[in-house]
């Protein structure tokens, strides 16, 4: 007999499959109009997408660290963080990521870097002050799970269509409605079909992007808790961080905004911390409930 908790797990996996298929369809819709103009235009569109994505893969990790004002720390400076990360590497077989600390009171953490050898895990000083070792480990395990699942890449690819849509809409509306010369307005008119496409696809892309983000959070929660074997610490850390965020003054929350503003920067804010990003993350109650399911699995000795 298969207990109910396993079937629910399968539910998550099949929803991940569904969103991945939808994402592929979305990319198809993005380039199809260009192919209808001519094959050359179509190939040019594919190449442009590839170049833009590659640029993001390459530079985004540093942009994320810069946006959060984070500093890479050595093992001598932060032996505890490095020790915890190294043991998680032992358990997971993942290469050791760089470790960074952001000097912010808001408890938060994120992983960035698309390539395995450029990966970085960052925690804020506020997080370190508030969590005990087991809870800190659970947060790091969650971020390592994002790295294991290559969620930085997933987030970049998932966020890209929405990013393009937003870019096209703002650029063309700027050309049309701005103070510019006639030539600029003419260019705006020529580009109108692209706006139509963007307006059509933008909301769809954004919804899909958010759905993927929420699923990947649940996946990372599960993998992280299975990695440490201590889902109770994960729940405790989540609950603590959220309580802290709700009581934090708005001015402090604003410190985290740069990260949020960089729409396609593939920084995975574990934004359980960030009120602005709430829609990218499932509600805490859902996450804690799912962690309880992991507890039950561990208690029964089955994996």
């Amino acid at each position: 007999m298969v207990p109910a908790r396993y079937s629910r797990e399968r539910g998550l996996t099949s929803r991940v499959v569904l969103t991945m298929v939808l994402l592929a369809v979305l990319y198809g819709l993005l380039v199809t109009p260009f192919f209808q103009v001519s094959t050359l235009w179509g190939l040019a569109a594919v190449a442009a997408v590839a170049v833009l994505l590659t640029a993001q893969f390459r530079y985004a990790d540093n942009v994320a660290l810069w946006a959060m004002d984070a500093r890479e720390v050595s093992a001598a400076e932060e032996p505890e963080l490095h020790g915890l990360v190294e043991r998680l590497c032992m358990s997971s077989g993942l290469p050791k990521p760089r470790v960074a600390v952001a000097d912010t009171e808001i408890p938060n953490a994120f992983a960035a870097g698309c390539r395995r050898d450029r990966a970085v895990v960052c925690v804020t000083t506020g997080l370190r002050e508030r969590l005990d070792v087991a809870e800190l480990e659970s947060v790091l395990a969650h971020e390592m799970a994002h790295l294991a699942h290559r969620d930085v890449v997933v987030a970049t690819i998932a966020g890209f269509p929405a990013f393009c849509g937003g870019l096209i809409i703002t650029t063309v509306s700027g050309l049309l409605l701005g103070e510019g010369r006639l030539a600029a307005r003419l260019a705006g008119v020529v580009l109108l079909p692209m706006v139509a496409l963007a307006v059509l696809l933008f909301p769809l892309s954004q919804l899909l992007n958010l759905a993927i983000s929420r699923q990947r959070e649940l996946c990372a929660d599960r993998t992280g808790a299975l990695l440490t074997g201590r889902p109770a610490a994960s729940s405790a850390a989540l609950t603590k961080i959220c309580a802290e965020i709700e009581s934090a003054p708005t001015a402090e929350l604003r410190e985290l905004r740069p990260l949020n503003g960089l729409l396609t920067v593939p920084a995975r804010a574990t934004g359980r911390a960030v009120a602005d990003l709430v829609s990218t993350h499932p509600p805490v109650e859902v996450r804690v409930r799912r962690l309880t399911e992991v507890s039950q699995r561990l208690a029964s000795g089955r994996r």
Partner: protein
Amino acid sequence: MPSFGDVVLGRARPADPDLDAIFGLVPAAAALEAMTGFVPSGLGSVCFRTVDGGVFDAFAQVQRELRRLVATEPGATAEYSTDAYGCGWVLTRHPQGALERVVNDLHAVNATFDEGGFGPYLLCSLTGFARPDGRRLALVYTHVSGTFYPFAPAAGGGRDDALEDQATEAVGADLPFERDRARWFPLWDAPAI
């Protein structure tokens, strides 16, 4: 490392350990002694994650079996401890040079975890080595990657890179060895060193 499918589906899982490679230590120790003068110190330890659960849960069952197992071994003493990271350690003590008994103990401990379904929560098994001049060395076996690496704390703090290199040269060919130095994770407070 998770497979491509598991990456896409976001369900990387803790990997199952490779337990038998640890028996390779016995012939390798002879080569180590010949080349560097290090002999087995008779100490060995296993580091594991302490999994959540109550006294009647599966993990508690594994720990009970472990205690029974180690207690019935004549002449051996085992010690349990928890380190600063919340990981558990089992330390086994034998007379100097009794490497085979140390390795058997380590394997028995590992097998107990594995049979209980907690193999992925084994972090590493350490075997201690010592030299008459007081120097210490450990060969660390990481279960998930199935490889060994040397760890030698230097007398004045830090690691003794030269000694670790010598040890690698001596046994690197006989054992599945970790070639990536970035994965030679230090274990400063390991009880078997």
